[in-house]
């Protein structure tokens, strides 16, 4: 969790965790994300669904370059705090095997008013999914697996570092 400079001091004691091999405890994250200066809080939970492109999915496995991914997520959260004046910005992504219905990634944003919290939340999840070195392997019911459904913005923007939401 990252709090803005107007934050509550207690949270500063806890090191932020951006990548987790363990199940994400959304209730616990939400409990810590309230702020007296925030009138709007948005929580996004990216969850594993049981199908993709017509194929029955058994589960997903996520792999990450933990150091690079953590560094990038922290940068993204700080950018969002600055851009929208957030009181709270939280993001954590799972690694390892994630079952159907489980949370793969959570983003929480809190700000004085809801519009900033919504916009910042979308900004954060878009950038994490397209830029952070985190990869998804889909395991299907038929026993096969496939790395894929990855960011292909380069085909549209012509630049590895430019994504569709940059336009």
């Amino acid at each position: 969790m990252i709090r803005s400079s107007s934050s509550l001091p207690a949270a500063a004691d806890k090191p932020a965790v951006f990548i987790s091999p363990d199940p994400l405890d959304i209730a616990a994250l939400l409990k810590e994300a309230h702020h007296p200066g925030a009138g709007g809080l948005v929580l996004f939970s990216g969850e594993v669904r049981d199908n993709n492109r017509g194929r029955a999915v058994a589960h997903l496995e996520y792999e990450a370059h933990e150091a690079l991914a953590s560094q990038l997520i922290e940068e993204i959260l700080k950018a969002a705090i600055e851009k929208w004046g957030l009181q709270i910005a939280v993001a954590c992504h799972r690694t390892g095997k994630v079952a159907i219905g489980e949370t793969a990634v959570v983003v929480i944003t809190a700000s004085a008013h809801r519009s900033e919290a919504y916009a910042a939340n979308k900004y954060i999840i878009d950038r994490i999914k397209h830029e952070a070195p985190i990869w998804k392997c889909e395991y299907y019911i038929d026993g096969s697996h496939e790395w894929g459904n990855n960011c292909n913005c380069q085909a549209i923007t012509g630049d590895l570092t430019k994504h569709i939401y940059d336009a």
Partner: protein
Amino acid sequence: MKIHVYAALKEHFDPEFELKETVHNTDELKACLQEINADAAELLKSCRFAVEEGFIDNAYKLKDNDTVVIIPPSSGG
């Protein structure tokens, strides 16, 4: 030079291996890896590179003792 690959690239290369050839930048590294395994050529075109926990571009001068991380496109969606 040590090379670490992730995700779909592991279908084409060992997760970690030593590259004996000398390459000076990421374009040369990409070309070298494409020669080793032509099946990876398309994927390598969309990969990013990092050393010492930081992303690099083709202007970075690679050294023989670098450990280069090759980053396929992120999960997207």
